């Protein structure tokens, strides 16, 4: 016997949570939160993705090596997006965005 077998009820719970959170995302998009609309949408999406990774993809039950591998990927994604935006954000003095000048 290799691998943890999750109960069906867990999968159904995660499924329902994902569906409810999808509804919450749509609902939140219709509320004017200013700059926070984007943040809220991304937090919800991040939470949904975590549920899928942790339970559907069984990372919860995997070895530390696997968990570290997953974390490494997310770490580099943060570097990619973070430094990319810092780079472009610091170009304010050079006439960005290009098409509007």
């Amino acid at each position, binding site marked *: *016997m*290799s*691998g943890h*077998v*999750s109960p*069906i009820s867990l*999968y*159904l719970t*995660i*499924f329902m949570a*994902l*569906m409810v959170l*999808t509804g919450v*995302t*749509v609902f939140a*998009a*219709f*509320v*004017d*939160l200013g700059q926070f*609309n984007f943040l809220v*949408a*991304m937090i*919800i*999406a991040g939470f*949904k*993705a975590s549920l*899928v*990774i942790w*339970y*559907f*993809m*069984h990372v919860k039950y*995997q*070895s530390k*090596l*696997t968990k570290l*591998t*997953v974390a*490494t*990927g*997310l770490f*580099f*994604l943060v570097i*990619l*997006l973070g430094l*990319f*935006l810092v780079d*472009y954000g610091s170009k304010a003095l050079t006439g*960005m*965005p290009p*098409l*509007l000048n």
Partner: protein
Amino acid sequence: MSNAVAHADEHAHAAHHPALQHHFDTMAQQKEAAVVGMWVFLLTEILFFGGLFAAYMVYRIWYFDAFAEASRSLSLFWGGLNTAVLIGSSLTMAMAVRCAQTNKRTATVNWLVLTMVLGTVFLGVKVIEYADKFEHHHVPGYNFQWAAHEAPAAGEHAPAALAASEGAAAAEGHRELSLNADQLQLTTQIYFSLYFTMTGLHALHMIIGIGIMLVITWMAYKGRFDEEYYTPVEMAGLYWHFVDIVWIFLFPLLYLVERHV
């Protein structure tokens, strides 16, 4: 003595699971190698899509009004439906893996088939959406035409035909836009370029996923898997869930840029 060793060796060999490759000691070790390897592949996929997300972020910040306007032209109904379909297919995929883990051959096959059906439904909806974009000249390129609001999905009232040419401020009366009509024509194309690239690559991943699943379903049907060896089902599952996660981000990024005005 040598006889005993030979016998022990033979016995050990007979005890092996037939799926155990000779370069692994145990089934658990073999599975661990597969899981880590699959995740390393998925990391390259995360960064692959990550580059597109980075491009999306920069253009969204630069041309927010164009993104908001163009995003409103997408159908929330189809987008929401597809999100639900894809989440549902993740559930059926998880069930398929679970049935493979617990030696339920027929159920494994059935869940896999259902997953493929849901994946096909998703792609079918995508075809409807793409066709709609072609019809409205919202495909970037030569025939692209951003006339502010031909057919808003959310059943908004009929637009004044002249609204587009009168400049951005007239657009639907949402609020004052920072872009004039010419700029909108240019910058909404950037949104739709990203829309087609990201959803197109996502759809390509789904087509590949369905292709993988066809093979896995055949293997399951042939009885290749049992509670000790179901790695291919689980790996196909990891891939499918990954595709689901990409969509979980694409949906709010593309469909919900600014819906509250």
